[in-house]
């Protein structure tokens, strides 16, 4: 069972290559993610992300231009991020025509399953209501006056 997984997506009016550069180039990353990004975008590369006076190590996992980019970070903790102590951030880019790109991000914790993409998709389909939706629904139920 995978752990924490937050999934969000956005539709961007720009070609996939432009979006790819925005999410992978360190000087761009420092505009949307951390204040300081020291990172070589290569699988297995170790880097550092600074947030104000805090920071932590980051390890690049997948670099598959222009569709998949993922890295592990464990927030400002001093250990090396590996499966089990860190969060995995996965970006998936899908072109929607020449000038539009759908960008999905998933942040998950705990053990990472090394499943083929198709397997993962099947799993996600079978568990249509992710725990994010589940919690959203609970929030509504909890907001009602008690029975």
């Amino acid at each position, binding site marked *: *069972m*995978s*752990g*924490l*997984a*937050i999934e*969000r*997506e*956005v539709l*961007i*009016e*720009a*070609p996939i290559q*432009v*979006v790819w*550069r*925005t*999410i992978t180039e360190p000087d*761009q990353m420092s*505009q*949307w*993610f951390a204040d300081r990004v020291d990172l070589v975008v290569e699988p297995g590369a170790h880097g550092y992300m600074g947030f104000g006076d805090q920071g932590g190590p980051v390890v690049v996992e997948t670099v598959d231009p222009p569709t998949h980019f993922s890295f592990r970070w464990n*927030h*400002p903790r001093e250990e090396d991020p590996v499966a089990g102590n860190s*969060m995995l951030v996965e970006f998936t880019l899908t072109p929607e025509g020449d*000038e539009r*790109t759908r*960008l999905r*991000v998933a*942040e998950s*914790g*705990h053990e990472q399953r090394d499943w083929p993409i198709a397997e993962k998709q099947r799993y996600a389909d079978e*568990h249509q*209501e992710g*725990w*994010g939706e*589940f*919690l*959203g629904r*609970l*929030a509504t*139920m*909890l907001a009602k006056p008690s*029975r």
Partner: protein
Amino acid sequence: MTTQADDELWSAIADPSRRRVLDLLISNGEVSASWLAGRVPFSRQAVSKHLVVLDQAGLISRRKKGREVLYRVEVNRLDQATRVMADLAAQWDRRLGTIKRLAEAAHAEATKMRTLEPRR
């Protein structure tokens, strides 16, 4: 940023079977493990295991009533979970919003350059 306690919480909720158990507890108040087992497509043994995980994560509590053990949802803990989740999701929405702005600006700039070029 997650703590050990959060990790337990997230993995407790990550399992669809446990969400089903939580659902039943929320809609039915205080019930026993055998009552739950009669309403889910998995074994009584599996129900007990799920209850242990949910209890450890602080999402439910148990009390003895006669010879029965009754379980109920810990509303505050669930409430806390929904808020943390919403915060993390909002953080990603902000980041994706920035990425969108940066990429669209870069694209608009490149398009402008291209349309200007032939005139030069």
